[in-house]
């Protein structure tokens, strides 16, 4: 084994490990930053009531009710993607994917509340949250590296 072999071997191991490490640290960083961001936006829209029923306690206001939509696409970083693929060998819960989906759903709900607040409504009825297979990769290649979530709801005035 000469020097070239050793360099090749190191590169072959080092490069994937580097990207996994990058994914791990950067992924953790983006996730915690996103959490913090949602936490800080939450209080401003805490008064917007969100539910998935028909418009309850509805009253008329200056505008008719309006349908709101919001969407978000979150990437699953390299490390967590790799972890997910490993996990799928033995089965069981894949917590790293669950976390991404959870954050995406909370993000779209928050965006709906923010829109409702901006237009002056104080409640959102009939919240629907859907997973969108935007690229066809989720079902065809079974290798989702990102998740797209689409949320809809109807903003209305609620009797307070």
């Amino acid at each position, binding site marked *: 084994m000469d020097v070239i072999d050793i360099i090749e071997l190191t590169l072959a191991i080092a490069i994937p490990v580097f*990207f996994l490490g*990058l*994914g791990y640290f*950067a*992924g953790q*960083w*983006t*996730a915690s930053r*996103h959490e913090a961001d949602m936490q800080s936006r939450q209080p401003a829209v805490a008064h917007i009531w969100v539910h998935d029923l*028909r*418009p309850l306690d*509805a*009253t*008329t206001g200056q505008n*008719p*009710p*309006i*349908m709101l*939509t919001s*969407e*978000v*696409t*979150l*990437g*699953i*970083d*390299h490390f*967590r993607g790799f972890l997910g693929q490993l996990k799928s060998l033995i089965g069981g819960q894949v917590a790293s994917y669950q976390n*991404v989906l959870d954050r995406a759903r909370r993000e779209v709900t928050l965006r709906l509340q923010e829109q409702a607040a901006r237009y002056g409504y104080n409640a959102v*009825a*009939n919240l*629907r949250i*859907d997973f*969108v*297979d*935007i*690229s*066809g*990769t*989720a*079902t*065809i*290649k079974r290798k989702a*590296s*990102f998740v*797209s979530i*689409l949320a*809809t*709801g*109807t903003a*209305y*005035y609620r009797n307070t």
Partner: protein
Amino acid sequence: MIVVNTETVPGYRVVRVLGIVQGNVVRAKHVGRDIAASLKNLVGGELKGYTELLTESRRSAMERMLAQAQELRANAVLNVRFSTSAITQGAAELYAYGTAAIVEAEA
């Protein structure tokens, strides 16, 4: 035009139901966005390019639906739903549908 995803509109009465209106859009994402997204994807986080793609698709599907509703002379579309299907890899359909109706404000 009043557009809601509920069966009723608070403060309004449904006078006449005109029927289903719909709009669909099939969009492919373009390569530039793909490359940018795959780079961003190393570290996770929001892929804004794809979010925008979804926003645009949803908007044009809605516009087509609303155009149909206008043809029927409806003033409201009720119970709007979206559904998506991945037709092939790299292209997805976004389909919006709802019930066109005539509503009037309750006295």
